Protein backbone atom coordinates (compact mmCIF):
# COMPACT_ATOMS: atom_id res chain seq x y z
CA UNK A 1 0.00 0.00 0.00
CA UNK A 2 1.25 3.52 -0.76
CA UNK A 3 0.78 5.74 2.27
CA UNK A 4 1.61 9.44 2.43
CA UNK A 5 2.25 10.96 5.84
CA UNK A 6 2.14 14.73 6.33
CA UNK A 7 4.36 16.00 9.13
CA UNK A 8 7.70 14.52 10.12
CA UNK A 9 7.54 15.41 13.79
CA UNK A 10 7.84 12.76 16.44
CA UNK A 11 4.47 11.28 15.64
CA UNK A 12 5.13 11.22 11.91
CA UNK A 13 8.59 9.79 12.45
CA UNK A 14 7.48 6.81 14.51
CA UNK A 15 4.50 6.25 12.26
CA UNK A 16 6.83 6.18 9.27
CA UNK A 17 9.13 3.70 10.98
CA UNK A 18 6.28 1.39 11.92
CA UNK A 19 4.71 1.50 8.46
CA UNK A 20 8.06 0.83 6.77
CA UNK A 21 8.52 -2.15 9.07
CA UNK A 22 5.18 -3.49 7.94
CA UNK A 23 6.43 -3.36 4.38
CA UNK A 24 4.38 -0.45 3.07
CA UNK A 25 5.57 2.13 0.61
CA UNK A 26 5.60 5.28 2.73
CA UNK A 27 6.57 8.86 2.09
CA UNK A 28 6.69 11.67 4.64
CA UNK A 29 6.17 15.26 3.59
CA UNK A 30 7.89 17.74 5.86
CA UNK A 31 8.38 21.49 5.50
CA UNK A 32 11.43 21.77 7.72
CA UNK A 33 14.66 20.97 5.85
CA UNK A 34 16.51 19.96 9.03
CA UNK A 35 13.89 17.45 10.09
CA UNK A 36 13.75 16.14 6.55
CA UNK A 37 17.51 15.61 6.51
CA UNK A 38 17.48 13.75 9.83
CA UNK A 39 14.81 11.37 8.56
CA UNK A 40 16.63 10.84 5.25
CA UNK A 41 19.94 10.17 7.04
CA UNK A 42 18.34 7.63 9.31
CA UNK A 43 15.76 5.88 7.20
CA UNK A 44 16.74 6.52 3.59
CA UNK A 45 14.97 8.60 0.97
CA UNK A 46 11.50 8.41 2.44
CA UNK A 47 11.13 12.10 3.24
CA UNK A 48 10.23 14.80 0.77
CA UNK A 49 10.63 18.44 1.68
CA UNK A 50 7.49 20.39 0.96
CA UNK A 51 4.14 21.69 2.09
CA UNK A 52 1.57 18.90 2.36
CA UNK A 53 -1.24 21.38 1.77
CA UNK A 54 -0.05 22.36 -1.68
CA UNK A 55 -1.66 20.52 -4.55
CA UNK A 56 1.50 20.89 -6.66
CA UNK A 57 3.70 19.28 -4.02
CA UNK A 58 1.21 16.48 -3.60
CA UNK A 59 1.16 15.93 -7.36
CA UNK A 60 4.95 15.71 -7.36
CA UNK A 61 4.97 12.85 -4.87
CA UNK A 62 2.33 10.90 -6.76
CA UNK A 63 -0.58 11.44 -4.40
CA UNK A 64 -2.89 10.35 -7.19
CA UNK A 65 -1.87 6.73 -6.68
CA UNK A 66 -1.78 6.86 -2.86
CA UNK A 67 -4.07 4.43 -1.05
CA UNK A 68 -4.03 6.36 2.17
CA UNK A 69 -3.21 9.86 3.30
CA UNK A 70 -2.38 10.58 6.92
CA UNK A 71 -1.94 14.13 8.24
CA UNK A 72 -0.23 14.27 11.63
CA UNK A 73 1.16 17.79 11.96
CA UNK A 74 0.59 19.62 15.23
CA UNK A 75 -1.96 21.98 13.72
CA UNK A 76 -5.55 20.91 13.15
CA UNK A 77 -6.10 23.43 10.36
CA UNK A 78 -3.10 22.15 8.41
CA UNK A 79 -4.23 18.55 8.80
CA UNK A 80 -7.72 19.43 7.63
CA UNK A 81 -6.58 21.30 4.53
CA UNK A 82 -4.00 18.63 3.62
CA UNK A 83 -6.69 15.94 3.78
CA UNK A 84 -9.13 18.02 1.78
CA UNK A 85 -6.56 18.71 -0.95
CA UNK A 86 -5.68 15.00 -1.08
CA UNK A 87 -9.33 14.06 -1.34
CA UNK A 88 -10.57 16.69 -3.76
CA UNK A 89 -7.51 17.23 -5.96
CA UNK A 90 -6.02 13.75 -5.96
CA UNK A 91 -8.96 11.46 -5.14
CA UNK A 92 -7.16 9.63 -2.33
CA UNK A 93 -9.66 6.99 -1.16
CA UNK A 94 -8.88 7.23 2.54
CA UNK A 95 -7.76 10.19 4.66
CA UNK A 96 -6.81 10.22 8.33
CA UNK A 97 -6.20 13.36 10.38
CA UNK A 98 -4.73 13.89 13.79
CA UNK A 99 -6.67 16.45 15.80
CA UNK A 100 -5.55 18.38 18.87
CA UNK A 101 -8.97 19.77 19.71
CA UNK A 102 -11.34 16.79 20.23
CA UNK A 103 -14.28 18.98 19.20
CA UNK A 104 -12.96 19.10 15.65
CA UNK A 105 -13.90 15.45 15.12
CA UNK A 106 -17.44 16.39 14.10
CA UNK A 107 -16.34 19.14 11.72
CA UNK A 108 -13.67 17.01 10.07
CA UNK A 109 -16.14 14.16 9.46
CA UNK A 110 -18.59 16.62 7.97
CA UNK A 111 -15.89 17.96 5.68
CA UNK A 112 -14.97 14.57 4.31
CA UNK A 113 -12.04 13.39 6.44
CA UNK A 114 -12.57 9.64 6.92
CA UNK A 115 -10.93 9.14 10.30
CA UNK A 116 -9.84 11.53 13.05
CA UNK A 117 -7.56 10.61 15.91
CA UNK A 118 -7.42 12.71 19.03
CA UNK A 119 -4.81 11.86 21.63
CA UNK A 120 -6.91 13.63 24.25
CA UNK A 121 -9.81 11.29 23.56
CA UNK A 122 -7.55 8.24 23.44
CA UNK A 123 -6.07 9.05 26.85
CA UNK A 124 -9.51 9.76 28.27
CA UNK A 125 -10.72 6.38 27.01
CA UNK A 126 -7.68 4.69 28.53
CA UNK A 127 -8.42 6.34 31.86
CA UNK A 128 -12.04 5.20 31.71
CA UNK A 129 -10.88 1.67 31.05
CA UNK A 130 -8.29 1.80 33.83
CA UNK A 131 -10.54 3.20 36.54
CA UNK A 132 -12.42 0.10 37.73
CA UNK A 133 -15.25 2.03 39.34
CA UNK A 134 -16.15 3.85 36.18
CA UNK A 135 -19.59 2.45 35.46
CA UNK A 136 -19.90 2.75 31.67
CA UNK A 137 -17.10 2.46 29.14
CA UNK A 138 -17.82 3.09 25.51
CA UNK A 139 -16.21 0.36 23.45
CA UNK A 140 -17.35 1.09 19.94
CA UNK A 141 -19.47 3.55 17.99
CA UNK A 142 -21.59 2.25 15.11
CA UNK A 143 -22.05 5.59 13.47
CA UNK A 144 -24.33 4.64 10.58
CA UNK A 145 -26.71 2.88 12.95
CA UNK A 146 -26.58 5.54 15.65
CA UNK A 147 -25.63 2.93 18.24
CA UNK A 148 -22.83 2.45 20.72
CA UNK A 149 -21.50 -0.70 22.32
CA UNK A 150 -20.72 -0.18 25.98
CA UNK A 151 -19.24 -2.11 28.84
CA UNK A 152 -21.02 -1.76 32.21
CA UNK A 153 -19.67 -3.21 35.42
CA UNK A 154 -21.94 -4.35 38.23
CA UNK A 155 -20.38 -3.23 41.49
CA UNK A 156 -21.10 -5.11 44.76
CA UNK A 157 -23.03 -2.04 46.05
CA UNK A 158 -25.30 -2.11 43.05
CA UNK A 159 -28.99 -2.50 43.91
CA UNK A 160 -29.40 -4.87 40.97
CA UNK A 161 -27.16 -7.62 42.36
CA UNK A 162 -29.32 -10.73 42.69
CA UNK A 163 -32.03 -9.38 40.41
CA UNK A 164 -33.03 -10.99 37.14
CA UNK A 165 -32.69 -9.33 33.76
CA UNK A 166 -36.47 -9.12 33.31
CA UNK A 167 -36.73 -7.10 36.55
CA UNK A 168 -34.48 -4.36 35.17
CA UNK A 169 -36.14 -1.27 33.77
CA UNK A 170 -33.86 -0.99 30.75
CA UNK A 171 -34.38 1.82 28.24
CA UNK A 172 -36.14 0.50 25.15
CA UNK A 173 -33.18 1.12 22.84
CA UNK A 174 -30.79 -0.81 25.10
CA UNK A 175 -30.08 -4.52 24.75
CA UNK A 176 -27.78 -6.62 26.90
CA UNK A 177 -25.58 -8.68 24.60
CA UNK A 178 -23.09 -10.61 26.69
CA UNK A 179 -22.34 -11.06 30.38
CA UNK A 180 -18.77 -11.72 31.42
CA UNK A 181 -18.88 -12.90 35.04
CA UNK A 182 -16.02 -12.25 37.49
CA UNK A 183 -15.20 -15.94 37.18
CA UNK A 184 -16.13 -18.37 34.44
CA UNK A 185 -16.85 -17.82 30.80
CA UNK A 186 -19.03 -15.30 29.04
CA UNK A 187 -22.66 -16.08 28.20
CA UNK A 188 -25.67 -14.50 26.54
CA UNK A 189 -28.15 -13.23 29.15
CA UNK A 190 -31.80 -14.31 29.05
CA UNK A 191 -34.81 -12.91 30.96
CA UNK A 192 -34.20 -15.15 33.96
CA UNK A 193 -30.45 -14.48 34.21
CA UNK A 194 -29.51 -13.29 37.71
CA UNK A 195 -27.01 -10.44 37.92
CA UNK A 196 -23.95 -11.00 40.11
CA UNK A 197 -21.51 -8.56 41.66
CA UNK A 198 -18.50 -8.23 39.38
CA UNK A 199 -20.44 -9.01 36.22
CA UNK A 200 -19.24 -7.16 33.20
CA UNK A 201 -22.06 -6.51 30.77
CA UNK A 202 -21.57 -5.72 27.12
CA UNK A 203 -24.62 -3.88 25.86
CA UNK A 204 -25.84 -2.16 22.73
CA UNK A 205 -27.56 1.19 23.17
CA UNK A 206 -28.12 4.62 21.65
CA UNK A 207 -25.85 7.42 22.87
CA UNK A 208 -28.91 9.16 24.37
CA UNK A 209 -30.01 6.21 26.51
CA UNK A 210 -26.51 5.39 27.77
CA UNK A 211 -27.23 7.14 31.06
CA UNK A 212 -30.59 5.42 31.38
CA UNK A 213 -28.93 2.05 30.83
CA UNK A 214 -26.31 2.81 33.45
CA UNK A 215 -29.00 3.84 35.93
CA UNK A 216 -31.08 0.73 35.22
CA UNK A 217 -28.09 -1.53 35.76
CA UNK A 218 -27.20 0.17 39.03
CA UNK A 219 -30.80 -0.03 40.16
CA UNK A 220 -31.38 3.70 40.50
CA UNK A 221 -33.73 6.04 38.68
CA UNK A 222 -32.29 7.76 35.63
CA UNK A 223 -31.49 11.45 35.93
Amino acid at each position, binding site marked *: MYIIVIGGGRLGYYLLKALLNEGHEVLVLEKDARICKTITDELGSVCFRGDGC*EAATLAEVGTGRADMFVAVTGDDEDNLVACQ*VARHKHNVPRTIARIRNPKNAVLFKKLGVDVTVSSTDLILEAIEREVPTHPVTQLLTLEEKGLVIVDVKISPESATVGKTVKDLSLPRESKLAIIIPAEGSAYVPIASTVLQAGDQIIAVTTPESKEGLRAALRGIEAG
Partner: protein
Amino acid sequence: MKIVIMGCGRVGARLASLLDEDGHKVTILDIDTYSFRRLPPSFGGMALFGNGIDEEALKRAGIEEADVFVALTQGDNRNVMSCQIARHIFNVPRVVCRIYDPLREEMYSALGLETLSPTKIFAQLLKERIEG
Protein backbone atom coordinates in the same frame (compact mmCIF):
# COMPACT_ATOMS: atom_id res chain seq x y z
CA MET B 1 -25.73 43.66 9.31
CA LYS B 2 -23.90 41.73 11.98
CA ILE B 3 -20.38 40.96 10.82
CA VAL B 4 -17.66 38.85 12.43
CA ILE B 5 -14.09 39.37 11.21
CA MET B 6 -11.26 37.03 12.14
CA GLY B 7 -7.80 38.59 12.09
CA CYS B 8 -7.04 42.18 13.06
CA GLY B 9 -4.13 42.83 10.73
CA ARG B 10 -3.98 45.85 8.45
CA VAL B 11 -6.75 44.60 6.20
CA GLY B 12 -8.92 43.26 9.02
CA ALA B 13 -8.67 46.45 11.07
CA ARG B 14 -9.38 48.65 8.08
CA LEU B 15 -12.34 46.57 6.95
CA ALA B 16 -13.71 46.58 10.50
CA SER B 17 -13.54 50.35 10.80
CA LEU B 18 -15.04 50.91 7.33
CA LEU B 19 -17.98 48.63 8.09
CA ASP B 20 -18.35 50.21 11.52
CA GLU B 21 -18.53 53.68 9.94
CA ASP B 22 -21.33 52.42 7.70
CA GLY B 23 -23.30 51.47 10.78
CA HIS B 24 -22.83 47.71 10.79
CA LYS B 25 -22.44 45.74 14.00
CA VAL B 26 -18.83 44.53 13.81
CA THR B 27 -16.95 42.07 16.02
CA ILE B 28 -13.28 41.50 15.28
CA LEU B 29 -11.31 38.55 16.64
CA ASP B 30 -7.57 38.11 17.02
CA ILE B 31 -5.29 35.80 18.95
CA ASP B 32 -3.04 38.75 19.83
CA THR B 33 -4.70 41.67 21.61
CA TYR B 34 -1.76 43.88 20.57
CA SER B 35 -3.25 43.75 17.05
CA PHE B 36 -6.20 45.80 18.23
CA ARG B 37 -3.93 48.88 18.31
CA ARG B 38 -4.65 49.09 14.58
CA LEU B 39 -8.29 49.92 15.21
CA PRO B 40 -8.99 53.67 15.14
CA PRO B 41 -10.12 55.37 18.38
CA SER B 42 -13.51 55.98 16.75
CA PHE B 43 -14.14 52.22 16.27
CA GLY B 44 -17.48 51.44 17.90
CA GLY B 45 -17.54 47.67 17.35
CA MET B 46 -16.25 44.92 19.58
CA ALA B 47 -12.64 43.67 19.64
CA LEU B 48 -12.38 40.21 21.10
CA PHE B 49 -9.45 38.01 22.03
CA GLY B 50 -9.93 34.55 20.56
CA ASN B 51 -9.07 31.99 17.95
CA GLY B 52 -11.41 31.73 14.99
CA ILE B 53 -10.85 28.00 14.58
CA ASP B 54 -12.27 27.44 18.05
CA GLU B 55 -16.05 27.06 18.13
CA GLU B 56 -16.29 28.52 21.63
CA ALA B 57 -14.45 31.69 20.61
CA LEU B 58 -16.68 32.04 17.55
CA LYS B 59 -19.77 31.67 19.73
CA ARG B 60 -18.48 34.38 22.06
CA ALA B 61 -18.04 36.59 19.01
CA GLY B 62 -21.72 36.07 18.21
CA ILE B 63 -21.28 33.86 15.16
CA GLU B 64 -24.71 32.32 15.74
CA GLU B 65 -26.42 35.61 14.88
CA ALA B 66 -23.89 36.80 12.30
CA ASP B 67 -24.93 37.62 8.74
CA VAL B 68 -21.37 37.68 7.43
CA PHE B 69 -18.10 36.04 8.46
CA VAL B 70 -14.77 37.14 7.01
CA ALA B 71 -11.48 35.31 7.60
CA LEU B 72 -8.37 37.49 7.27
CA THR B 73 -5.58 35.87 9.26
CA GLN B 74 -2.11 35.32 7.83
CA GLY B 75 -2.67 31.56 7.60
CA ASP B 76 -4.54 30.25 4.58
CA ASN B 77 -5.38 27.04 6.37
CA ARG B 78 -6.69 28.82 9.43
CA ASN B 79 -8.89 30.97 7.21
CA VAL B 80 -10.18 27.94 5.33
CA MET B 81 -10.93 26.00 8.50
CA SER B 82 -12.69 28.87 10.27
CA CYS B 83 -14.78 29.60 7.19
CA GLN B 84 -15.85 25.98 6.96
CA ILE B 85 -16.80 26.05 10.65
CA ALA B 86 -18.80 29.25 10.08
CA ARG B 87 -20.54 27.71 7.13
CA HIS B 88 -21.08 24.08 8.07
CA ILE B 89 -21.45 24.30 11.85
CA PHE B 90 -23.03 27.74 12.32
CA ASN B 91 -24.73 28.15 8.93
CA VAL B 92 -23.62 31.77 8.53
CA PRO B 93 -25.41 33.06 5.40
CA ARG B 94 -22.33 34.68 3.87
CA VAL B 95 -18.75 33.56 4.45
CA VAL B 96 -15.76 35.21 2.78
CA CYS B 97 -12.32 33.64 2.90
CA ARG B 98 -8.95 35.15 2.07
CA ILE B 99 -6.55 32.57 0.62
CA TYR B 100 -3.13 33.77 -0.52
CA ASP B 101 -2.25 30.56 -2.37
CA PRO B 102 -4.01 30.74 -5.78
CA LEU B 103 -4.17 26.95 -6.15
CA ARG B 104 -5.80 26.44 -2.78
CA GLU B 105 -8.08 29.36 -3.53
CA GLU B 106 -9.29 27.71 -6.72
CA MET B 107 -9.95 24.43 -4.98
CA TYR B 108 -11.99 25.91 -2.14
CA SER B 109 -13.83 28.13 -4.55
CA ALA B 110 -14.77 24.98 -6.47
CA LEU B 111 -15.90 23.45 -3.18
CA GLY B 112 -18.32 26.32 -2.73
CA LEU B 113 -16.54 28.79 -0.47
CA GLU B 114 -16.55 32.46 -1.40
CA THR B 115 -12.82 33.04 -1.73
CA LEU B 116 -10.46 35.89 -2.57
CA SER B 117 -6.79 35.50 -3.43
CA PRO B 118 -4.94 38.79 -2.90
CA THR B 119 -1.96 37.25 -4.69
CA LYS B 120 -3.95 36.69 -7.85
CA ILE B 121 -5.83 39.96 -7.73
CA PHE B 122 -2.82 42.11 -6.98
CA ALA B 123 -0.57 40.46 -9.54
CA GLN B 124 -3.25 40.99 -12.16
CA LEU B 125 -3.67 44.64 -11.17
CA LEU B 126 0.08 45.24 -11.35
CA LYS B 127 0.32 43.53 -14.70
CA GLU B 128 -2.45 45.71 -16.12
CA ARG B 129 -0.86 48.83 -14.71
CA ILE B 130 2.55 47.98 -16.16
CA GLU B 131 1.25 46.95 -19.56
CA GLY B 132 -1.41 49.64 -19.80
